[in-house]
């Protein structure tokens, strides 16, 4: 970098432009200089004003380039499986399941009373615990001791989260928002991807919306649909964690199968029977430990249709109320 002009640097590493921009440097007209020459054009007073020191800026730029290159160079889907090796529960007793492996394309529900340790289990996974958390569990990725990059990298997180109380807060249209997200993920075929996300979101949501809609004025169902399809397509995280997804306005079954089609592992903390039974297995947590791992039985699966039917009826009642109708005993048939 010492002898490279800013112009050549940006040609080679286009993303370095956003480092300079976000650090409030305007390099126009200075492209022929090296980065050090450019920084040397600032007087001490100007540096004081902008609050930077040249050495940190250069070091930061080197670090940024290194991180981005490693991010771009990675295979997109290198996680095939996740293994949990048992630790201890809150009383210090060993967990009895030994070892449990989850593969991409599987849905696992996590159930247990409040305070039992569901979030801790998810935390262990996200932190790729190596017997160094309160549970002493160990997490393997692809059957091996994982890279610590999962703990500290900003661009490569193991777990993406979707939950009930999440909202969009930015003041942008759907198109601007997706563009910004795609930009930060450094995808190449941005237009195609954005189109794919909106198509899929509209497929999941009851009511359609388009690219010019401001994200903050999407309905609850539309927001959730957009979040799911955006996370599935743009987030690199191989594991998706779902904390109760409300039923209204979105086809949850479709949403789950869509996530799975993107080769994700889906973990759900839920007590909703419809969601829990959509899972292949469920982990029962008790007193901080994994107490049992239950495989969804055929009988349970066959009940799913009945539960869905009841759920549909309740939803119909909701719609009737919304329309201002008076409910009769026929409404629940």
């Amino acid at each position, binding site marked *: 970098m010492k002898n490279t002009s800013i112009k050549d640097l940006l040609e080679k590493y286009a993303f370095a432009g956003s480092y300079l921009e976000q*650090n409030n440097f305007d390099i126009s007209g200075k492209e022929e200089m090296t980065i050090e020459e450019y920084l040397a054009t600032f007087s001490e007073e100007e540096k004081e004003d902008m609050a930077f020191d040249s050495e*940190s800026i250069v070091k930061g730029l080197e670090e940024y380039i290194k991180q981005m290159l490693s991010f771009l160079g990675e295979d997109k889907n290198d996680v095939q499986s996740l293994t949990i090796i048992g630790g201890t529960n809150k009383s210090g007793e060993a967990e009895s399941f030994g070892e449990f492996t989850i593969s991409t394309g599987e849905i696992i529900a996590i159930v247990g009373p409040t305070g039992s340790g569901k979030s801790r289990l998810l935390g262990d996974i996200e932190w790729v615990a190596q017997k160094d958390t309160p549970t002493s569990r160990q997490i393997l990725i692809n059957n091996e001791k994982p890279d610590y990059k999962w703990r500290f990298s900003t661009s490569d997180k193991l777990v993406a989260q979707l939950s009930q109380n999440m909202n969009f807060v930015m003041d942008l249209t759907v198109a601007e928002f997706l563009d910004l997200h795609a930009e930060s993920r450094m995808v190449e075929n941005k237009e195609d991807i954005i189109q794919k996300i909106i198509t899929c979101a509209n497929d999941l949501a009851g009511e359609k919306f388009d690219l010019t809609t401001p994200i903050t004025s999407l309905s609850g169902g539309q927001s959730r649909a957009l979040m799911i399809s955006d996370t599935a397509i743009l987030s690199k995280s191989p594991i998706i964690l779902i904390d109760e997804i409300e039923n209204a306005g979105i086809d949850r079954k479709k949403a789950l199968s869509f996530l799975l089609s993107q080769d994700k592992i889906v973990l759900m903390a839920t007590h909703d029977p419809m969601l829990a039974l959509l899972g292949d297995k469920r982990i029962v947590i008790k007193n901080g430990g994994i107490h049992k791992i239950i495989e969804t039985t055929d009988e349970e699966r066959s009940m799913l249709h009945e539960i869905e039917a009841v759920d549909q009826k309740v939803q119909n009642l909701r719609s009737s109320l919304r329309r201002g109708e008076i409910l009769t005993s026929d409404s629940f048939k």
Partner: protein
Amino acid sequence: MNLVTVSGPPSSGKTAVILKTIESYQKQGIYVGVIKFDCLYTDDDILYEKAGIKVRKGLSGGLCPDHYFVSNIEEAFAWGQKEKFDVLISESAGLCNRCSPYIKEIKAICVIDNLSGINTPRKIGPMLKSADIVVITKGDIVSQAEREVFASRVNTVNPKAVVMHVNGLTGQGSFELSTLLYDKELDTDSLKGKQLRFSMPAALCSYCLGETRIGEEFQMGNVRKINLEQ
């Protein structure tokens, strides 16, 4: 004793994160105290006391709280030693985006929240750019995409920092943060001779000295005029 400096914009979740982190330390038998620096008002000392944590507070009043921090941290450090803490955490309100209370060789944590807007990282100066660890809070109320965009902006302005997500309400991520803060190896006996990571701006104008009247003739010292020409 370890000293850890925590700073961040108002209401970003500093106290919430510190409280959850201390919970993890208490389980491990590590003794932690807090010194809170603020400008005009704070209730934080009550929150810490309620959680059974020893705390002292200092209000800077008319001074920039970070300037006040540097002038008082040595005494605060001595108090912490007297109390025999393993770790003393300082919480400062980052009110002035130009100053920061970080000291060389002392862990520096910046707490900012997802709701503050994606252009916030570039607006905050050394408080964000020279931190060792940046903790992002309130991820529970924004979408995954916004969390990713926000974290990537933070990473762009400070690629050297470890960026962590902590939920100040549930404590998710606070155990993980706690493993990065306390390090017996980093124990220090005294702050004497240590240096700030970044100078604090040279500001000494008549208003610093209590002037309240508006008008050119009342402006003295280090005064700079805005340029309104295009």
